[in-house]
């Protein structure tokens, strides 16, 4: 029996993936990832956005070819290899097909005869609790029902591995919980035709609730930072002290800095102006600083608690916290976010003083902002086309990231009043419309 359990379904060895211009500077998304998925287990890939976990999932699904490294499906006893099937965050249903047709579509691609197709699809629909909705179109269904269709469609082709890309993150809290519970029930009772599940999530509690094994990803580049075995008995209880401890422990792991000498792990890959910046509004930054400064926290807040109080998920909170760290307004360590003196001063200051403080920190700690300001100061006209900076950024990162980074820096720069930007002309300047 133990032999069967140890057999691996898929092995990833040294998978590396990079975006960017070939030859030029590239943004490393996945670096040297090893992963083995065994039979009869649920494995979670946990990490922040930008840690390449979706890329990894798509690599296993065969949608993306790895830059280097290998994805191997070992031969099983009967000579066949494991097959995969995928559930998408956005459901990815064909809006012009009925529920039944959507579920049948994978079988149709495999040229299964119509009668058998229908029989198997109806069985999957039955299993996943969709009977009565066979002839409905996706737009008539609620989000939860749509994701059930996505699940039925993935299960009907009898895959060995079910890949799930943040399957519950587009659903509201209640619906997501129901769907998780239903899925877990099916899994525990062994009623699904699958052998193993590999799921991507950024929700720590979800990972602890569902998985036998959690791989925590560090970001930029994505690497497996830690592997955590979850031995809690099923069904698991969120209020159980063991459960809470594990969640807290993972929070700490996700916020800890790398050992001295290693590059600092965090959101910000690259240095200088080649640092991709997340889209975080100055209002959100101010709000977080105020929340940490005031109330029960008094300058130092426990992240799981803070996320819970603010109705945030870890993934939404991390970029903001890390940005505050980058701007030296706060420090992030051991699962805690603590305000630095500048952060405290900011939280207590009035509008204009806040802007001045923000401007100082922006120029001192965000190289791109300082770079734009320097170029504007140097030029006699005090104007510079945004195109120029976009081109510079695209040497370091993808077009998409470059656009996002520039948008972020424009928003922060406008707030700090260190430069102006005219969208029509796509031009930076030192003009102040006031």
């Amino acid at each position, binding site marked *: 029996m133990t032999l069967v359990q140890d057999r691996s379904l898929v092995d990833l060895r040294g998978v590396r993936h990079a975006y960017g211009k070939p030859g030029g500077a590239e943004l490393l998304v996945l670096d040297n990832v090893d992963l083995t998925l065994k039979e009869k287990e649920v494995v979670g890939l946990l990490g922040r956005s930008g840690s390449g976990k979706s890329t990894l999932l798509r690599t296993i699904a065969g*949608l993306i070819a790895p830059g280097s490294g290998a994805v191997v499906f070992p031969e099983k006893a009967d000579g066949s290899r494991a097959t995969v099937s995928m559930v998408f965050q956005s459901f990815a249903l064909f809006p012009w097909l009925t529920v039944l047709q959507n579920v049948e579509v994978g079988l149709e691609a495999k*040229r299964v005869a*119509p009668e058998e197709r229908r029989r198997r699809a109806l069985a999957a629909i039955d299993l996943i609790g969709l009977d009565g909705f066979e002839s409905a179109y996706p737009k008539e269904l609620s989000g939860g029902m749509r994701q059930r269709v996505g699940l039925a469609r993935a299960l009907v082709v009898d895959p060995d591995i079910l890949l799930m890309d943040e399957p519950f993150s587009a659903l509201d809290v209640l619906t997501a919980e129901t769907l998780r519970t239903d899925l877990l029930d099916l899994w525990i009772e062994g009623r699904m035709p699958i052998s193993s599940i590999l799921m991507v999530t950024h929700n720590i509690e979800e990972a602890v609730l569902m998985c036998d094994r959690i791989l925590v990803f560090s970001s930029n580049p994505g690497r497996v930072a830690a592997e955590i075995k979850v031995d809690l008995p099923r069904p698991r209880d969120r209020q159980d002290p063991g459960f809470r401890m594990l969640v807290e422990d993972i929070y700490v792991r996700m916020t800890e800095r790398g050992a001295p000498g290693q590059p600092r792990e965090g959101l910000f890959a690259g240095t200088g102006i080649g640092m991709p910046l997340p889209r975080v509004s100055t209002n959100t930054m101010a709000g977080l600083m105020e929340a940490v400064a005031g109330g029960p926290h008094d300058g130092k807040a426990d992240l799981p608690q803070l996320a819970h109080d603010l109705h945030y998920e870890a993934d939404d909170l991390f970029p903001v916290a890390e940005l505050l760290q980058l701007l030296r307004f706060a420090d992030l360590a051991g699962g805690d976010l603590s305000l630095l003196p500048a952060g405290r001063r900011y939280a207590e200051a009035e509008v204009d003083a806040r802007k001045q403080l923000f401007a100082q920190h922006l120029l001192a700690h965000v190289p791109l902002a300082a770079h734009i300001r320097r170029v504007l100061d140097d030029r006699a006209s005090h104007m510079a086309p945004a195109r120029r900076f976009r081109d510079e950024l695209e040497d370091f990162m993808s077009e998409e990231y470059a656009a996002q980074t520039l948008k972020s820096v424009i928003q922060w720069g406008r707030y700090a009043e260190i430069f102006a930007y005219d969208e029509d002309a796509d031009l930076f300047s030192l003009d102040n419309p006031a």
Partner: protein
Amino acid sequence: MVFLFEDTRGARPRLRFLRSGGALSWADVFAFLLLAAAAVLVVHGAGQMSQPLAQLDVAPVVLDPANLPEYALRTTLRMFAALAASLVFTFTVAMLAARSRKAEMVIIPALDILQSVPVLGFLTFTVTFFMGLFPGRQLGAECAAIFAIFTSQAWNMAFSFYQSLRTLPKDLTEVSRQFGFSPWLRFVRLEVPFATPGLVWNIMMSMSGGWFFVVASEAITVGDTTVALPGIGSWLALAIAQRDVAAVGWAVAAMAVVIALYDQLVFRPVVAWADKFRFEQTASQQRPRSWLYDLVRRTRLVRRLLAPFGWPLRWLAAIPRPHLPPLPRLRISAATGRLLDRLWLGVVILAVAWAVWLVAGFIATSLHWSDVLAAFGFGLATLARVVVLIAVASLIWVPIGMWIGLRPAWAGRVQPLAQFLAAFPANVLFPFAVTAIVVWRLDPDIWLSPLMVLGTQWYILFNVIAGAGAIPTDMREAASIYGIRGWQWWRQLGLPGIFPYYVTGALTASGGSWNASIVAEAVSWGDRHVEAAGLGAFIARATKAGDFPRVALGIAVMSIFVIAFNRILWRPLYGFAERRLRID
């Protein structure tokens, strides 16, 4: 639960068995009669088309209202034949452009140019070509007429399909790749459904535009060759030649009936059906309805009659094929890729240069630089007309369209009327214009001009109506709360709100006007002939005289004008509207 949803495909086998058996419903009988009648008409019309050409001399087009239904049928068949050809063209060419980058480099600019080129001018060449292909048969002339209609329909359809293919939702593409869809399954399950709403809209626009060409292409005179194919267009041409006002009236009535019929019998059902392909996850408020579509959905007989049409496709899909591992992608380095691109570009440039040289050589054999200059001069005259007319039409229709668009009850009634008027070929009004100009001794250079926008101004109207209807209610409420009215209202809410729609309408209208100038600048009523100085009249005259070099010159010059106009004016406006004025 089962009865909550209208079942179109009989998803529940048990339920379908319950309903089969039992007597035929009235709907079954009615639908069957409709289908049978359509089949008989198509067979009859198609049989007529293959008659020898000499038959036309024996039985020429006569102005007898008893013949009109037959003429109307043949005209309609021509239009749908052209539509079928356009669809085939769309699926192949747009697919090629979306799949291959090298093909895209050639196809997309070519489509862009073709859709703005005066296709009426090509008639001269295509008639000669097709008549040569089927000597002595009506089929040659039929093909030429169908081709003329095709050239007015195909380009925007292909563009729409290509654009849809380029904007396929990423997650659905991933699903189809993950399940290993065959190209065919991908085509029928993903690409065509996603493109359908845009394509249906463009098909309707194309049909409207096609009428204009029907009238121009059925009765063709190129040099000494005169062919009048039985159809509404030839009827109209004859009526004008014989100064028969009553016959013109009959033609107008026949067109109205045909347009109303295919609207009810074809487009409405198609639009109602296409609604399910709209890519949105929320149910729409107002779904387009069609009695015929409801009828077909309700009757099992018709569904069973239509079922055999699906069989070949199903067989095709069911052929078991060995599962081949995907071919390893040919990996070429970026440098090699760039080199190949350059090589390809070089080949394309050479081909274009050769084509230019060929055309120039053709024109230069009998024409001088002075002719080219003259053509450009005429082009400027027509350009001035188009600009002034679009401006005038805008001044008139923007306020009216806004007024209507802001009142949904009115918009619902006026919108179909405007679309109907857009489909209506303005040629039928030309006789009255000629009479007026001759009687009151007006200057044709000025008074013939309005004919150019007669048919095309409606595009401005119904786009403005759509735009005004799309202005969000909360913005209108905000404007009224802060007392914004008068010029400020137009400047800050009204004009920005409709601008993207207006640009679309005005672009279509101006393109149509250039085309219309070929017909509208030289107008006859019996033996009375009135002509304005312009590029359209230049091409029309050359066509009548069979002067091929001049026709080629005229088309080339007009193409240059239209393309320059698009690039300098409409393209930037479009970009501006996309960038700044999108409400999302």
